[in-house]
């Protein structure tokens, strides 16, 4: 039984990953067929998992309503709107009928950048609080932040050309160097992590604690 529960799935994981990796390097039409099938299967199985989310969300808000938790009318509103969106989406033509697109274009489309735009406030208040000449590290960060802020404000280069030139240069050289080094580091870590999972030595995925 233990094989069906733990080792089996782990070996299955490794086999699936092995086919996908090999297919990237070796030109063989059979392998490509297998890899395409696996990719497609993962898309389908992954789509099924969204049900877990919807069940979880529905349970939480139903509970809020039944137990009359504070602000429970909001939970009711959420469930109704979820139901409406789903029904609107499922009326044929699937996902492109008038009501569904109306909801998408008039609720989703403006709210997405609205929430995104909150970051503009947070990024400035974080800078105000964190970027102080506390020590050399933070001072350097502050210095380069200021250079780039002044470079990106159109008035900076227009009134004082060297700031534009300096700003361009730090973006081209320093930023490139740091990003590239970190990308290399992250890539190596990810590869090694993946290989450890395939060899079954990593705790966590299906292995649990202990």
């Amino acid at each position, binding site marked *: 039984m233990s094989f069906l529960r733990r080792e089996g799935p782990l070996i299955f994981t490794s086999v699936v990953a092995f086919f996908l990796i090999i297919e990237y390097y070796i030109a063989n039409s059979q392998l490509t067929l297998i890899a395409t099938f696996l990719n497609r299967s993962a898309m389908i199985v992954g789509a099924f998992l969204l049900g877990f*989310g919807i069940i979880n969300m529905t349970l939480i808000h139903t509970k809020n309503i039944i137990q009359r938790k504070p602000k429970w009318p909001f939970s009711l509103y959420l469930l109704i709107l979820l139901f409406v969106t789903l029904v609107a989406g499922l009326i044929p033509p699937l996902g492109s009928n008038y009501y569904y697109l109306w909801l998408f274009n008039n609720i989703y489309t403006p709210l997405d950048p609205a929430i995104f735009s909150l970051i503009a406030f947070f990024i400035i208040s974080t800078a105000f609080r964190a970027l102080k000449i506390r020590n050399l590290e933070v001072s350097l960060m502050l210095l380069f932040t200021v250079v780039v802020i002044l470079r990106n404000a159109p008035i900076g280069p227009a009134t004082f050309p060297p700031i534009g030139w300096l700003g361009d240069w730090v973006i081209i050289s320093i930023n490139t160097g740091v990003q590239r080094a970190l990308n290399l580091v992250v890539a190596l870590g990810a590869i090694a992590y993946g290989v450890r999972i395939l060899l079954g030595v990593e705790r966590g995925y299906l292995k649990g604690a202990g």
Partner: protein
Amino acid sequence: MFSLKAGVTSTFIILIVFVIGMYIYMKISKKGMYFRRIPGLDALEECVGRAVEMGRPVQYSPGQKGVTDTNAPPTLAAITMLSYVAQICARKGANIGVSIMDAQVMPLVDQSLKEAYLAEGIDQYPKDGIQWLAPTQFSFAAAMLARLRREKPAAIFYIGHCEAETLMIAETGIEIGAMQVMGTEAVAQLPFMTAAADYTIYGDEIYAADAYLSRNVKTMGSLRTIDLGKLFAMLVIIIGSILSTFGISILTQILKW
């Protein structure tokens, strides 16, 4: 029939050498190997402990991606780290909540919480704390900010692949007076974590969590291989740029073979 595709031969050789190297180092590594400190990982206990003292919950989120695309490694690493954090919570009696964006990780989160609590001899794990907030980046951010203000956790862990929402969570965390440990492999978000979080786990340090926290001899050995990979990269870059200064591009040609 089985011929290598064009332009990936050297990559393939590097990958094979890397895997073999990892296998060998995992076999030969011994106990007591030196390992650099990672402050973010040392801080896990402290943060949970502080939450217990203050009588406030702990909040954990494994990033915003699932497990079927190229962001699988950071997400799985975040779930590994979740099992450690959950175990500390179980031991110290802290109340843990998990916020999820991609429903793909829900079974894994559920299982790792359950087993973490079982490992501490507790049958009942906080199932209600696992919440799927929303499926897209900013709907998730919106719900996450509201959850943080509502529950006022004293410790926030945001680990895994993340994007712009990092700073929103970090700034709200500061507003409610939470201690924050953040870690990601998404290089673009590291500046904000550095500025806003109490502890940042940089880049591939999130993958080292298992080796670092469990001092597992095998995984430690595999980290040695990563170091060799970094040394290899440094060496090739230095030699390659010196050679290309003199107009010799043989290394580039080999690597592009």
